[in-house]
């Protein structure tokens, strides 16, 4: 099910999909401040509307993510957690990871997965663990 198909407007929107009770956001456009603001609003509203248990932010389409963009994504993920859902970022590229870590981006609360399959598994494990850090 595709929610909130991009409408023609000033700000390009990130498509959100509901799959296996998870909202999947696939980021493939340049992350300007407006795009990130719009994305956050869309995502949180969709989360409330669909009562999804998890949110997967899929970024394998992005070759570059700078520290500010990553921080905006991280804050969005914290907001999702505050609304009671689990959230995982998936598909970060080696080059992106390398530069983020070199630039000391805050990554501590971020749960990451290699690809969508792993992300779904991770969310299921987190839901099963009911919020506690899943051991092994």
């Amino acid at each position, binding site marked *: 099910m595709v929610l909130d198909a991009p409408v023609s407007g000033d700000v390009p929107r990130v498509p959100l999909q509901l799959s296996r009770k998870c909202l999947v956001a696939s980021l493939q456009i340049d992350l300007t401040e407006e795009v990130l603001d719009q994305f956050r609003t869309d995502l949180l509203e969709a989360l409330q509307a669909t009562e999804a248990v998890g949110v997967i932010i899929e970024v394998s389409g992005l070759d570059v993510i700078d520290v500010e963009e990553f921080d905006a994504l991280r804050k969005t993920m914290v907001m999702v957690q505050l609304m009671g859902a689990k959230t995982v*970022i*998936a598909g*970060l*590229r*080696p*080059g992106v*990871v*390398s530069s*983020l*870590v*070199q630039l000391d981006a805050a*990554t*501590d609360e*971020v749960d*990451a*997965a*290699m*690809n969508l399959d*792993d*992300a779904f598994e*991770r969310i299921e494990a987190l839901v099963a663990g009911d919020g506690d850090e899943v051991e*092994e």
Partner: protein
Amino acid sequence: MSTALELLELYQLEYDDLKRIQSFGGGASAHIEAVVDDWYLWMEKQPEYDEFFADPMILNRVKRMVQDYWRDFLQAQVDDIYVEKRNRIGLTHARIGLPLAVYFAAMNVLNSLWLHVPNEAEDDTLVLMESLTKLVNLDTAVVVIAYADYVNDTIREQSTALLEMSTPVTQIWDGILLIPIVGIIDSKRSQDIMNAALAKIAETQARVFIMDISGVAVVDTAVANYLIKITKATRLMGCESIISGVSPAIAQTIVDLGINVGTVKTTATMRDALSGAFKRMGMEITYGS
């Protein structure tokens, strides 16, 4: 490599220069053998002579090549084939490891030997020498550039090999990567390790990355921070890091320095790390009955 035309312009060799060398060469080429033989009398006195010309077969072949070289030189047909021949000479010298100093000295001696060859053409000797020197310089430049390129390529290959040796990230099981780190970790090396690890994780879809630091010489605040950074990076790829080989000394240093390793998993032995990795992958080792 530059083309013949570019080189001619660079070394200010005019048509007249080449013409002058050619007309001198008409008479002088009869003396090539004598000049080359004279040159070898000089060469014999050099310490490198025994190393490179001990074998008479090699000596004869090289002598013939030197004669061909000067025959080409005196014909002064400076085209791309001519340049390519000089280029190959440079590569050969670099490959056999003939020092450039010897090459320069040899060219210098040869250059002055031509002075004693009777100049049958009517040209002024001074002007002729100028032309000869220009062409000798052009030749020397091509040879030296080829030599330097060869040496630089070798160095580049070696440092690539060294880099790969210093970051031996290996897949030891499905989804499990291992790197034994030996020696000193500095910021450059930690970055190399991180990049190698991330590339390998993306390639093999690994879930666990074991860093064995039992061979690391010194663990101080900087090194610990590098290691923590690497674990953060692999975690962003969805791959958990385990640091194994934490010796009593290292454990003590980490606590004494007040380094917060956070949630990084550490084990004393590689065996513990491996068994943790298997557990993480949902695998279990059973012993046959």
